[in-house]
């Protein structure tokens, strides 16, 4: 394998790792905090209800925004690091 394709291969692996990590957070804030783990979080009160309700109606959406911007920012770094930016 040439250096060139090895470089690209590493870039792609880094991208896939970043995606997997982001998807874990994505699932944790929505399916986790908002739905499945809600009974576990019911002890944590917030504004007359529990943390799970907040995740379902506000927290998950705010986390999604943070996730996309973090991904875009990290990918820009990776693009430069591997010399693959446009």
């Amino acid at each position, binding site marked *: 394998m040439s250096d060139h394709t090895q470089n690209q291969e590493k870039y792609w692996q880094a991208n896939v790792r970043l995606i997997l990590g982001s998807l874990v957070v994505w699932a944790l804030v929505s399916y986790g905090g908002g739905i499945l783990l809600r009974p576990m979080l019911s002890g944590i009160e917030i*504004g007359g*209800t529990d943390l799970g309700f907040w995740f379902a109606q506000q927290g998950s959406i705010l986390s999604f925004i943070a*996730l996309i911007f973090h991904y875009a920012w990290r990918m820009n770094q990776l693009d430069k690091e591997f010399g693959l930016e446009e």
Partner: protein
Amino acid sequence: MSQFAINLLFVGASFALYFGIAIWARAGSTKEFYVAGGGVHPVMNGMATAADWMSAASFISMAGLIAAGGYANSTFLMGWTGGYVLLAMLLAPYLRKFGKFTVPDFIGDRFYSRTARLVAVACLIIASVTYVIGQMTGAGVAFSRFLEVDKETGLIIAAVVVFFYAVLGGMKGITYTQVAQYCVLIVAYTIPAVFISLQLTDTFIPAIGLFSEHTQSGVPLLQKLDEVVRELGFNDYTADVDNKVNMVLFTLSLMIGTAGLQHVIIRFFTVPKVADARWSAGWALVFIALLYLTAPAVASMARLNLLTTIYPDGPTEQAIQYDERPTWMQTWEQTGLIKYEDKNGDGRIQLYNDTAAFKEEAASRGWAGNELVVNRDILVLANPEIANLPGWVIGLIAAGGLAAALSTAAGLLLAISSAVSHDLIKGSINPDISEKGELTAARISMFVAIIVATYLGMNPPGFAAQVVALAFGIAAASIFPALMMGIFSKKVNNKGAIAGMLAGLGSTLVYIFTYLGWFFIPETNMLANTPDNWIFGVSPLSFGAIGAVINFAVAFIVSGMTEEVPADIQELVESVRYPKGAGQAIDH
């Protein structure tokens, strides 16, 4: 000035703006028509995507759905936003790098198969047409309520307006009109919400007001709401749900369905670079969130407001006299969207949950049944009146509702027309068509699409709610997995992709039709659509996620048993993975 004149002024002014933009942004080439020339700024595209995405359903219906279902309907909030995370990481940047005009373009090239391309075209036309019917009907309702014309006239006005800027401007005209429409709709949605939040909680950000103290009673707003609805026999607003598996699958279906909708995906073809596609998805979600974070606040506050209007002294005291009801109730009664029937003949309005469990309590209070039926779609539209806001706010809501419906309709019509002119005519029937010929074909197919959508909007097939679910199911089970495998796997070949798409699509359709009737014809369903009958408690609307899993599984198994992907296609997959390379969308 009368309310009618104010509404006319706001709607007229917003339309003048859209027409002005349409004339300024005419499309001269197919590239401008399909992808707005590929030079749209990522923030601008984010705004246009938000307007493209937020339909009459988001603007008008969603808050009403949440108000009625409480926590259980948070699925819509998470499902219709979480898809953007998938778009940003799994699809948009690579499809932008691929650099062609449509989704079937990619599927046809990547799976080196005309059949695969045609299956994709069929899926997206069914999904987009079903979706556009809802938009046209929504626009018709908004016109008839605020401009006092009948529904058919309203629909025709909507069709003419869309025709004018979409056919003339293509993606370029649509993009800049959508930016303007986003501004109109977000201002219209936010202003009444801020006022109501101030009235109820002294907090001017509705999303924070939702978790603040209810000024009048001194207890948290949501706790107050729970107490009030409990007294009237309803489930607690914040109550947890039992069937969590179904809630997860429904949310997942909405998320991957969102990421698989062609009219959303093609918006990311309009930005200059791969990096812009990623940023743009983030901006789109920011602009969407401005509405989606406010909607749950509007939902709970409007429900509390409505119940305090009916029971001014609290839910355990007497309800309001019918003769003393506020004027906004009278106006909406005329539209038939609020209905009152004095069942126990006491001249008061009893609104409660008429169930077996609450029978005894109701009887002891002398109630003979729920007397007020409020259509949940009017919640957002009537919001300014319920909160006693000035007339111009109502005019603004009218313009906002129309902006939401028209912007989505235009995006969908473009998706349909590009599938017909680019994928069917140029891609299959007449590959030698000239650029000018293709542009004319695109305009003609959009014209035909508008006629069909208007006709179906006037004669809705009677199952509008189900068909929208169908659109998401199809996108989730067929398009999304095919795109994802096309980018992330070099092993999936033409046979695997086609088998996968057909298996995902087929299983989803069969499951939906089993419960909702074959082709939605009433009485042809084989099982009653009740939770007891659902396999493992999975509702037909949640099946898209399972269809997607079936699609992935079948594609990998079939690909494993058949020949390898050709070397040049493997190179194509390589090339979409790295931003470096041809920057501009490929002209062809």
